[in-house]
């Protein structure tokens, strides 16, 4: 008999340690939940709620942005967009956080990887940050390609700058770096050298472009996908994305998929 999930996620309460407004409507939250922090891997996520009375009715999915297993904490980098994230933005140290996690498959870093490229748009950097740190630890060279609407929304650029081989920026308004597609820079790098693995998060357009580059330059590539979720644990079949192999649950078979498996309709 096959049991699909030996690593059963936990449902526990965590404690909000701090909640910091970074700029505009971007925040970073630190949560103490040792059992989850100890099991968390880059690319995985938690379902989270900080609201009572079932309003909103569902928990919200957030990627691990920082994992500190020693102190038993993890960080979330989030953008305030609607009902749930508004409540999160107003929360204070000491508040209780209801959690289910760690969830999803997480990133794979294949053995003998020498260098990687990370491609992030906006808040998409959140999911990639633990991967960047883990790669650094393993001595893997990192090329970062960051894109956002405006310069001040290029999140964590200082930190990424300090640990990456090279960092490329584009912004929609040209306020930092160049205008246009950040993957054009990736293409320039690929013309010169071999990149072992490319990881992308935060933009369907960039992911499609990476798929095109992959056909030409033949590298491994993984994307972190987002879909609306009800349960986050694989039970409701609500979060599917189209793949070459039929619909797959983003919360269970994902959120990380090989780029060549994913089908975008438009």
């Amino acid at each position, binding site marked *: 008999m096959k049991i699909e999930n030996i690593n059963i996620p936990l449902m526990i309460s965590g404690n909000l340690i701090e909640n910091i407004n970074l700029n505009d409507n971007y925040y970073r939250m630190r949560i103490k939940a040792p059992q989850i922090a100890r099991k968390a891997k880059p690319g995985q996520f938690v379902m989270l709620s900080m609201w009572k009375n079932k309003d909103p009715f569902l928990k919200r999915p957030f990627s691990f942005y920082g994992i500190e297993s020693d102190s038993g904490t993890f960080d979330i980098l989030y953008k305030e967009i609607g009902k749930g994230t508004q409540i999160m933005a107003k929360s204070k140290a000491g508040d209780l956080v209801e959690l289910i996690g760690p969830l999803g498959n997480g990133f794979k870093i294949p053995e003998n990887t020498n260098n990687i490229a990370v491609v992030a748009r906006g808040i998409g950097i959140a999911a990639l940050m633990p991967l960047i740190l883990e790669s650094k630890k393993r001595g893997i060279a990192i090329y970062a390609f960051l894109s956002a609407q405006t310069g001040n929304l290029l999140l964590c650029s200082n930190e990424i700058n300090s640990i990456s081989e090279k960092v490329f920026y584009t912004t929609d308004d040209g306020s930092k770096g160049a205008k246009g597609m950040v993957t054009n820079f990736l293409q320039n790098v690929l013309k010169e050298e071999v990149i072992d693995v490319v990881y992308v998060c935060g933009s369907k357009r960039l992911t499609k472009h990476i798929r095109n580059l992959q056909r030409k330059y033949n590298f491994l590539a993984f994307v972190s996908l987002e879909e609306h979720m009800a349960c986050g644990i694989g039970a409701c079949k609500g979060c599917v994305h189209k793949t070459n192999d039929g*619909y797959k649950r983003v919360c269970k078979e994902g959120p990380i998929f090989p780029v060549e498996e994913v089908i975008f309709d438009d």
Partner: protein
Amino acid sequence: MTKEVSLEVDLGPLHLKNPIMPASGTFDIRCTLLNQKELNRLGAILPKSIAFQEREGNPGPRICETDCGLLNAVGVPSKGVEYFIKEELPLLKKANNTIIVSLMGNSIPDFCNLAGYLNENKEISALEINLSCPNLNNGILFGVNQDKLYELIFNIKKNTSKPIIAKLSPNVSDIREMALTAKNAGAQIITVANTLMGMAIDVDKQVFRLGNTMGGLSGPAIRPIVVRMIWEIAQSVDIPIIGVGGVYCAENAIEMLLAGASAVQIGSANFFNPHVMLEVIEGIEKYLIKKKYNSIQDIIGLMKN
């Protein structure tokens, strides 16, 4: 906890150690947070509707949160009955000794084949018929047409000796007629009810929020409607009722029992709180003790006209 009160309920041919079970489609034995002991505490276990053959379900987005609930247009993706028997049933068997299997089909022969196929499986205690399935012939749900509902249940009965639970659709003008029709066709139990049809539109992008355009509304938003339907049926049709819709705490479940339900399923609330079914069982027990009842039977259908 020492057992001071009995939570045992009888639904015609079906005897349960307590009235709480998952609602179909909201629980998966292959990815539950409940351990074996906890699974065994449930009154019954009820997996997602299965189809005879593999089917993939609806395109995304499949989920849209609404005020006090959610719309879903999952459709019924299924790996088919053979996979179910080989891979899922053994896990269910280990988890609980009352297994109810929910069936979906798109024609009467389709349902009958499925019921027939499962008839030999001794582990299955009853079959729940998901009447919110469209009939391939005309696209109309079995659950909203009295003649089709009768014909379907009547024919399924010929293919199985297991108790039949008809899971009604609430998208009808008079739920009592549907309950009576199901009973006359041979259903021994009814489940009230499946989701209410709804729709949501993103006004910014001017697109439907669900890939399937329409979806089923579940959650606390629908509970008062379901409580009313349970009560209406309990007043007029002599058939055991399983209530389902928007239950997220013991008080909600007790409300359904008082209205006339003999058992209660919990669906969407599992998403927010995977332990909710266990909490509801404990809560009902506490309520009975506090109110000095010996048995849950004493409160079922207490609310009369």
